């Protein structure tokens, strides 16, 4: 090899060193960005760092020596930025769960498509290890895509939120899973048998659907976290296929974040991940839900307002009903009116309240509640004996004392927000029917509890007026 050719080759590879270095910087910035999220005060600054890293990585990649045709790239970047900006500006906070599910689907489909494209171009020349990583990437990517779309449909109300269950479902799912794994195995053994590879992709899409349809809305926080984890891991597998470290790092961070959240959510419901995925929540309830008897006491608006106005400490406990009624601002208004009277107001937030981790915190922050008033379950529970009024807004299972007192309850052992230890409880509820879980809630029959029926938003608005007039 003559020196001139060597020099030319060296020059051709030089941009790769710059690119690798850019990726390294970007990876470090991502980690600093996530570290910033350990406190609300540093979070935004951290995110700016991560955004900078992302911009550098993308611009650097545009100079990659393999990229020769820019038409499709530019079109994709522009269209994607427009749609992404529209989401960022117009998605309401109450719709965060479904938008997050959709973004898991988008991330997963990107990973799956990159994998399929790599397979069509280079399957014959890949090492066994690369093909395994590619198979994992495409499997995780395809099942996460359809699974997230189903979750998104359920959260948006396009698909019924109730679990879809039938006899032999678990065997069918097992069969699909084994066929998918079989196709994966065979395409590892013989990469030229492309039918098996594409069969694996199709079965992956099917498995994603089957995995999420039996899961009820109340279990969504766990499912969201798991899908988050799968989407991240499929990105990480893409990194192994492409030999790209930043993909491995970012994908692993995403995957582990989802994994940690899944475990936290499962702990907050005292259930295992397999139980959520295969346990068929909702089905058990009707059998074991009897036991709570007695009379529910209704309270009038006037009485409720007077009780609140003369309290010295009030704790609000929000649930998913707060989001459906869009009542976060109404809660804040009532809290303001109470604080103007010198009453201490706090909010008790259960980890699985709502449909995704942290859902309630975001809604209340949107309504200008300072985060110092938002308390985690462990922090707020010791305060109830000194609380005059606990106001439950659209929450049900997370305040169900059966979880603590009745070992036969389907939710036995789930940690709850112990509102029943407060001096009095007011439950805001749409009607007398059972909540999403279909579970009877003995809290509603306790002597300390009064029920206030009606739409949470208008009820809270009227309460605010009444409190101001007291």
């Amino acid at each position: 090899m003559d020196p001139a050719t060597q020099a030319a080759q060296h020059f051709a590879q030089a941009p790769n060193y710059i690119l690798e270095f850019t990726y390294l910087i970007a990876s470090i910035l991502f980690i600093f960005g996530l570290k910033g999220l350990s406190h609300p005060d540093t979070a935004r600054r951290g995110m700016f760092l991560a955004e900078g890293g992302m911009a550098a990585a993308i611009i650097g990649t545009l100079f990659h020596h393999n990229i020769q045709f820019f038409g499709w790239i530019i079109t994709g970047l522009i269209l994607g930025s427009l749609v992404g900006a529209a989401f960022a500006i117009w998605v309401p906070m109450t719709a965060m769960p479904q938008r997050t599910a959709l973004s898991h689907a988008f991330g997963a489909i990107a990973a799956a498509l990159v994998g399929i494209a790599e397979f069509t171009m280079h399957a014959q020349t890949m090492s066994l290890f690369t093909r395994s990583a590619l198979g994992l990437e495409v499997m995780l990517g395809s099942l996460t895509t359809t699974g997230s779309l189903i979750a998104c449909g359920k959260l948006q109300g396009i698909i019924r939120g109730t679990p879809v269950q039938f006899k032999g479902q678990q065997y069918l799912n097992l069969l699909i899973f084994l066929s998918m794994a079989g196709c994966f195995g065979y395409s590892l053994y013989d990469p030229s048998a492309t039918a098996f590879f594409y069969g694996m992709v199709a079965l992956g899409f099917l498995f994603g659907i089957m995995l999420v349809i039996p899961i009820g809305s109340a279990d969504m926080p766990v499912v969201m976290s798991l899908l988050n984890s799968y989407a991240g891991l499929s990105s990480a597998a893409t990194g192994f296929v492409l030999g790209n470290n930043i993909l491995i790092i970012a994908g692993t961070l995403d995957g582990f974040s989802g994994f940690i959240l899944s475990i936290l959510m499962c702990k907050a419901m005292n259930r295992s991940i397999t139980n959520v995925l295969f346990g068929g929540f909702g089905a058990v309830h009707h059998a074991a839900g009897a036991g709570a008897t007695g009379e529910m006491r209704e309270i009038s608006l006037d009485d409720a307002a007077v009780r609140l106005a003369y309290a010295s400490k009030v704790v609000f406990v929000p649930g998913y009903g707060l989001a459906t009624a869009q009542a976060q601002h109404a809660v804040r208004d009532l809290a303001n009116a109470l604080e103007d009277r010198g009453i201490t107001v706090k909010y008790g937030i259960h980890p699985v309240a709502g449909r995704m981790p942290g859902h309630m915190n975001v809604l209340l922050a949107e309504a200008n509640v300072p985060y110092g008033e938002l308390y985690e379950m462990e922090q707020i529970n010791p305060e109830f004996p000194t609380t005059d009024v606990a106001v439950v807004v659209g929450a049900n299972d997370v305040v169900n004392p059966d979880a603590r007192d009745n070992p036969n309850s389907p939710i036995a052992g789930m940690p709850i927000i112990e509102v029943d230890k407060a001096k009095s409880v007011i439950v805001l509820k749409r009607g007398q029917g059972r909540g999403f879980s279909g579970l009877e809630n003995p809290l509603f029959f306790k002597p300390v509890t009064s029920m206030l029926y009606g739409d949470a938003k208008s009820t809270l608005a009227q309460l605010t007026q009444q409190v101001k007039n007291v």
Partner: protein
Amino acid sequence: MQVSQPSASEAMDPMVLIAALYVFALAAFLGYLVISRVPPLLHTPLMSATNAISGISLVGSLVIAGSYQFDYHKLIGGGSAAHASMATLMGFVAVFTATVNVVSGFGLTDRMLKMFRKEIKGKEAHK
């Protein structure tokens, strides 16, 4: 010196593979440490942020969407001649979805984080 192939996938020799596994293991460990320190208060922004960050798969999509000549007639013609154009199209869709995730992920995270305020009316924050 190794001659670079006109392919998006770099060949994985065993040392590169082991280095990649090191990266994976260390990133997993670091991710565990960093993410377990995020308070439940910020779990929704966390999910949104990690989503945006994993949109870095965009860099893989870009290389695929831009490496091959797109030829409509070959695509319609089918067979192995169509593969390059199919790969370009798949890369294009992946560039689109990954860009949506990056832009909306960072945008929404910032919109959410802006709302978390310590004080509104001179009340004490806990802890």
